[in-house]
């Protein structure tokens, strides 16, 4: 997929603005998101992080009031071009949500394979291979391998979140978006997710929204700081956290406001 694109951008965002009615939630944001790296998005509540993220896989279109301007390219393809359907974009750009949302009527196994089955894959062997592979990547395999047909909601909160990650991974997306994936979890489960992110970036491009500065500093390669819908500063994580160029960034990462 994204072979030898290690240094190039997976996503190119140009002059992106997103509106809810008259309210401009994301204001003229441009940035490149590197392939096979973790990009963290930080900023105070309500600054447009989730909105930005959802524009990347066109999830904001589910809201009839939402409207976007600008351009987003995924490995060179304009995802908002007329002949591209959101379904295809979302297939290539997976998403994990703040609150875990496994399908409660499905088993663990079915949750992982549902995306593949939608894509017409029926072969039992492929499905079970992909299940194991995705669950291993999500660091859940050892915990659930003996009860794959148990209902998904029988898992703990942290396990459910990792199941959702496995579900997103199973369709082999090119980019994985994570909107505060660990904010509802206890510290142990959170550190598991962080480890997971570090392993996943070998194969995936990851964009993660977080309120946790330590998490951003530990897990990400690049950091973007949003404030009131604007991109204030974007750069390598070490730079943002040690020598930010902008006063507001400094105030935020050192915990002086927000």
């Amino acid at each position, binding site marked *: 997929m994204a072979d030898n694109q290690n240094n190039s951008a997976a996503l190119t965002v140009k002059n992106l603005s997103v509106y809810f009615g008259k309210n401009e939630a994301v204001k003229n944001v441009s940035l490149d998101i590197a392939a096979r790296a973790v990009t963290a998005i930080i900023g105070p509540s309500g600054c447009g992080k989730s909105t930005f993220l959802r524009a990347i896989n066109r*999830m904001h279109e589910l809201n009839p009031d939402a409207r976007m301007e600008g351009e987003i390219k995924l490995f060179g393809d304009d995802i908002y071009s007329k002949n591209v359907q959101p379904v295809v974009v979302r*297939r290539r750009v*997976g*998403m994990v949500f703040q609150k875990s*949302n496994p*399908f409660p009527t499905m088993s663990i196994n079915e949750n992982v394979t549902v995306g593949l089955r939608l894509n017409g894959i029926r072969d039992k062997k492929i499905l079970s291979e992909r299940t194991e592979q995705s669950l291993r990547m999500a660091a859940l395999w050892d915990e659930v391998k003996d009860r794959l047909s148990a209902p998904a909601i029988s898992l703990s909160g942290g396990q459910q979140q990792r199941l959702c990650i496995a579900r*997103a991974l199973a369709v082999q997306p090119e980019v994985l978006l994570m909107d505060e994936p660990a904010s509802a979890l206890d510290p142990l489960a959170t550190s598991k997710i962080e480890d997971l992110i570090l392993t996943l970036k070998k194969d995936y491009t990851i964009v993660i929204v977080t309120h946790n500065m330590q998490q951003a500093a530990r897990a990400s390669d690049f950091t973007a700081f949003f404030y009131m819908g604007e991109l204030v500063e974007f750069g390598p994580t070490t730079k943002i956290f040690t020598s930010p160029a902008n006063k507001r960034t400094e105030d935020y990462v050192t915990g002086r406001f927000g």
Partner: protein
Amino acid sequence: MSRTKSAFLPLFVLLIFRREKKFDCMATTKMTTATGQFGDRAFKWLTLAMAFAVFVLIALIGYELASGSHLAMQKFGWRFLISSDWDPVNDIYGALPVIFGTVVSSLIALIIAVPISVATAVYLTELAPLWLRQPLIMFIELLAAIPSVILGFWGLSVMVPWLHAHLFPAMRGTLGFLPLFKGPDYGPCILAAGMILAIMIVPIITSVSREILRSVPGLQREAAYALGATRWEVTRIAVLSYAKKGIFGAVILGLGRALGETMAVTLVIGNIAQIVPSLFSPGATLASTIANEFTEATGDLYYSALFELGLVLLGVTLVVNIFAQLLLKTFAGPSVKPQN
């Protein structure tokens, strides 16, 4: 907006009481608390007594029906339920034919109404363009408001003749090899009753299903969208499977309504208590028999038998409704509004 409102609240409250001019005297604080306490207790008991009316009514209904059907129960015992003779002339009463008619007409109604209603609910919550939803919902609510006697009259004067002219001949042509669609067809019949019932229960099943679908968390839908599912796939994997139980509850609620529906059925079913395989032949239901014969009943046993039909009807609808309510309540807590 609500925030500014609540900021003015104490003011608003004060204004109301200023107008009442009763709430002004600090010196009588003790008195007011005392009367306040008394007033509080009295008011609470008053409202409690009124709320208890529902239990009183249920007891009353049960008692009246049981005592009214005493005579028939004594005379026929359990045979009442399994005997197939409903013969007022000889003062012999068996409820089987009317139970048969009730069950068959309600089943027909469900077979027609369930797929249509659920599909409509899905369309209204998931697939329809936003501008179309509100008008359609209003139409369906208005359909639910049509009095059943009007629907029955329309069925008798418009629908039944149309069925005999067009639909029934076609059914006989294609499905005539089945005993269900054999035999002469003229005038009112069980199939027509089933169809009128379907029209009557569609709005309930639709609107309760719609509430159920609306209560499916948005996160479930988003999970499916994020996997690249189309709108219909989202509906299928995230919404319908989540809402299965609740929709089942909605269907059962519709069944309860169909079983007890009276006027529309009375007008189009023909009111002949018989057990025959053909859906083109007239029949009778528990409710239609009571409606049709009660005012003309002669003799205590006849009355009592009709009361017992009412008791059977109450029993059946009670069981069905309790089942439906439990399904709906366990599905979504008390927020899902029961509709009838």
